[in-house]
């Protein structure tokens, strides 16, 4: 199976005062289509930076990020924009719905960007909202929706254009247990039913328990990359996110 995402010796440095901070340091891993993968790690470990690089909204300082075989590190802004529009769906921690749009308009927006005909857009929006169980709330603006509903609208928006990859940055962080559980079940269901690839960053143990694979980051380096069934058994871990650095090569792949 071909790689959907490939990180090859990826580093990302940010200038700070008169020096640099290594947000990511020589990171390597690959993701195949259909994975339900978590990126875990404490605050400042580089989770968001990693998602930004995979999501083509940032570029590595060194190394290559390949999305569906295309080296995104060298692409121009317009190509990156088109790549994000067509291949990636985003779910944000703070939902990031457009406040003046209704739920259905928010979901419709990615299709509008693709220049899809109106009738097809309506059909797709209807299916997407139905898949997240929000058909009844289609005409409501975000401020009239609960946090869980907003995040489900965000998920519908992320999948409506049938992207190859859905990136979710701490999707359950602002949700209570009930809504978080619903969202996790929803994402897992979409992953299994539609074969959508999910990569999400999280602190949430509930979400981690559902992940097929967990990549742990600490200080910008991959400290663990393993299947989730082994997670609970591991003795040496970053599971509490205390950043006890593992002596595992940050270049370790996913094992496929």
């Amino acid at each position, binding site marked *: 199976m071909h790689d959907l995402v490939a990180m090859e010796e990826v580093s990302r440095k940010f200038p700070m005062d008169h020096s640099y901070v290594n947000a990511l340091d020589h990171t390597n891993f690959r993701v195949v289509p259909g994975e339900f993968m978590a990126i875990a790690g404490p605050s400042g470990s580089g989770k*968001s*930076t990693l998602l*930004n690089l995979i*999501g083509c*909204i*940032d570029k590595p300082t060194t190394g290559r990020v390949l999305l569906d075989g295309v080296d995104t590190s060298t692409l121009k*802004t*317009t190509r990156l*924009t*088109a*790549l*994000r*529009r*067509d291949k*990636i769906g*985003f779910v*944000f921690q*703070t939902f*990031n719905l*457009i*406040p003046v749009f209704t739920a259905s308009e928010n979901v419709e*927006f*990615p299709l509008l*960007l693709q220049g899809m005909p109106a009738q097809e857009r309506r059909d797709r929006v209807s299916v997407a909202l139905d898949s997240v169980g929000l058909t009844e709330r289609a005409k409501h603006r975000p401020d009239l929706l609960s946090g869980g509903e907003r995040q489900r609208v965000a998920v519908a*928006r992320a999948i409506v254009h049938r992207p190859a990859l859905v990136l979710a940055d701490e999707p359950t962080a602002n949700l209570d247990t009930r809504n978080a559980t619903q969202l996790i079940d929803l994402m897992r269901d979409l992953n299994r039913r539609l074969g959508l690839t999910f990569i999400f960053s999280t602190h949430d143990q509930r979400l981690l328990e559902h992940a097929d694979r967990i990549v742990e980051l600490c200080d910008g380096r991959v400290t663990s990359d393993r299947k989730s069934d082994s997670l609970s058994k591991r003795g040496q871990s970053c599971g509490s996110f205390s950043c006890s650095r593992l002596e595992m090569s940050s270049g370790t792949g996913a094992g496929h």
Partner: protein
Amino acid sequence: MTLTMVGGGVAGLLLVGGFFAFMFRGLRESTINNGLGHLQIYTANHFRRDETRALETGIDHWQQVAGVVSSGRHVRGVAPRIEFYGIISNGVKSSVFMGSAVDPDSEKGLGFTPRLTAGRDLDGKPSGEMEALIGTGVARSMNVKVGDGLTLLAVTSDGALNGVDVQIVGLVNTGYKEVDDRYLRITLPSAQRLLQSDRVTNLVVGLDATENTDQVWAELAPPLRGLPQEVTLKKWVELATYYNQVKTLFSGIFLFLGIIVFFMVVMSSVNTLLMAMLERTREIGTMLAMGTPRSWVVGLFVLEATLIGVLGALAGVVGGNLIGTMLNHAGLHMPPPPGLTVDLAFRVLHVPSLMIGSSLLVISSLALASILPAVRASRLQIAEALAHV
């Protein structure tokens, strides 16, 4: 805030522009109806050289010219005039006068009636006594009143000095002190007797409406070219020096106000739109992350600003017209402007071209003001924008 600024700007421009339009129209009609007429006919030589003797460049056989003009569409009448000057005397004191000789019936037919403060207008019927209207300034200077006599002295068309006695039948206040101090008006036969000539200086043509001036001018020009004596047809606007000066001055003031409004709208809008951009940083970041082209973001900001401009302009047009109507019903008056001795009514005209022009001004101002925030928004770093709090 921006909407209020835009609406206020448009309303302000409409009120000021509407008042100026009322002044222009009032000045135009008063200029025309005070005797200028809509069109005037002179000999071509009148504008080529100065006269060395009275009526040297006057119109011969003016009745023939008047006959051609009178047959034109929209023509209400034709009034012959003689413009001359000389010395007026009460036997003790003499002064220079600027005289105008008219056919009273033709003048009345065109609605040209002098503003009398005493006595009556000239009588068109031939009589033994030569009548005159004089300005209030002349009357004061000569220490005369209605019914008194004065002597007029002028150089004839042959170069000789001639004099006639006139009886004052009325006093005139034109509204302009300088004119009132030199004003004299007598009948056409009286002037022709004084100047010893059958010619007239010009023919004044009155139309049914000022708006028809250009059309009538175009229609009358060809037949007038066929006359034995070369004549020139002038539109009122070419002869209304004072009107043009006033219009130029007030147009300049209005332009200045327009520029101020433009800058006020631009400056306040840039600030507001930049604030809006900051508030919406995460939203813009989200849109960009989802693959919205940066040009769309620019377009979105410009479109939003333009929409605010349209709404503001609409509110301004409605508000401006409403306030204008209320002011018109209040019956306000302005004190006399420099050079005039009578006060002016305060009215605001509802001018469609002004509404369109003011609206376009503020809409384009807002569109222009949105460019900087729009470009800044489109250049946001997505990752930073998404992390914006």
